[in-house]
């Protein structure tokens, strides 16, 4: 009997941890400057998807507007063509105290903005962007967006280093 309880005590958390690892985890990491607080908030993607499913649909859908709807097919076609294209630097803007680059590397579009003391890096898999963009209509669903994060596994999606020393990163594992 004790053996069964022990097996259950080990197996249940192991299965839960395995399920979470299999479905993915978003980790939000916030470091305050000068030895301040350090928050690490892990959010299992499966949990986020379940939560999104329970929120009323009208609260989780973002209306893009008629103009955006007209250009959604353009965005989809451009992203699909970009996914097929060779890797390279798409945009570079250099001005005194500011540098912006956008690169395409594999399935990833990497945006880097250096504005003096502030540094922002965003990495978005093209497959994620394609999954978020609606193929018809003009609504982006939050649950669809959460589900699309599956395409960004093992990616630091956002990294911001503020001029006051604060650091924020969002990583999908």
């Amino acid at each position, binding site marked *: 009997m004790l053996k069964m309880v022990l097996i259950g005590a080990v197996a249940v958390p192991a299965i839960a941890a395995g399920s979470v690892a299999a479905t993915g985890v978003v980790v939000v990491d916030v470091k305050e400057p000068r030895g301040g607080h350090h928050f690490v908030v892990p959010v299992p993607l499966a949990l986020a998807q379940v939560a999104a499913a329970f929120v009323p649909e009208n609260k989780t859908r973002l209306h893009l507007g008629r103009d955006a709807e*007209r*250009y959604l*097919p*353009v965005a*989809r*076609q*451009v992203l*699909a*063509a*970009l996914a*097929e*294209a*060779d*890797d*390279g*630097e*798409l*945009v*570079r*803007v*250099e*001005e*005194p105290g500011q540098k912006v680059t956008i690169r395409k590397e594999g399935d990833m579009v990497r945006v880097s903005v250096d504005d003096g003391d502030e540094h922002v890096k965003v990495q978005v898999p093209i497959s994620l962007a394609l999954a978020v963009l609606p193929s018809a209509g003009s609504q982006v669903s939050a649950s669809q967006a959460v589900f699309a994060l599956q395409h960004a596994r093992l990616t630091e999606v956002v990294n911001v280093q503020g001029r006051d020393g604060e650091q924020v990163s969002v990583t999908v594992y």
Partner: protein
Amino acid sequence: MRVRTLGLAGALALVVAAPVRSEAPRGRAWVHVRVDEPNRQSKVSVNLPISVVDAALQAAPEDIMSNGHIHLGRMGKHELSVSDLRKAWNEMKATGDAEFATVEDEDQKVRIARAGNLMLIHVEKPNGTESVRVEVPIEVVDALFSGQGEELNLRAGIAELQKRRGDIVRVHDDHSTVRIWIDEGN
């Protein structure tokens, strides 16, 4: 200034192209735009695979473009139409190499000519401080005018662009330089 210049450069990149050499393309073509403004210590560089430009044209909303054809209608106070331009182009094309227009005044010299398979539009200031050089391959203009009526066949123009390598546009003035070209580098 920079945004306007870049916008102009991007628009030009979509509709014109010129080969520096006529070797056959080997790989995928990229359109490059460089805008330098030394006074502002500003440099802008945009590199796009032509396939991406083509994809955007294919999916453009129908009121802007239909099947890669753009409808322009009549333009300007003199009501110049695309069909009028097409007729004029066919006449000019048949004449072979020629100087179509040379305008010289105190401020600038403008030359529009055909040389081989290129249409040349060169504008220069006498003191050399400003110059614009646009070199458009005959095939690209032909492709653009392959639409019907008041339509330009932009997709056909882009298809011709994919075969081109080299400079398309160079603009140089007191404040900035703009270069648009096509190659296989990224």
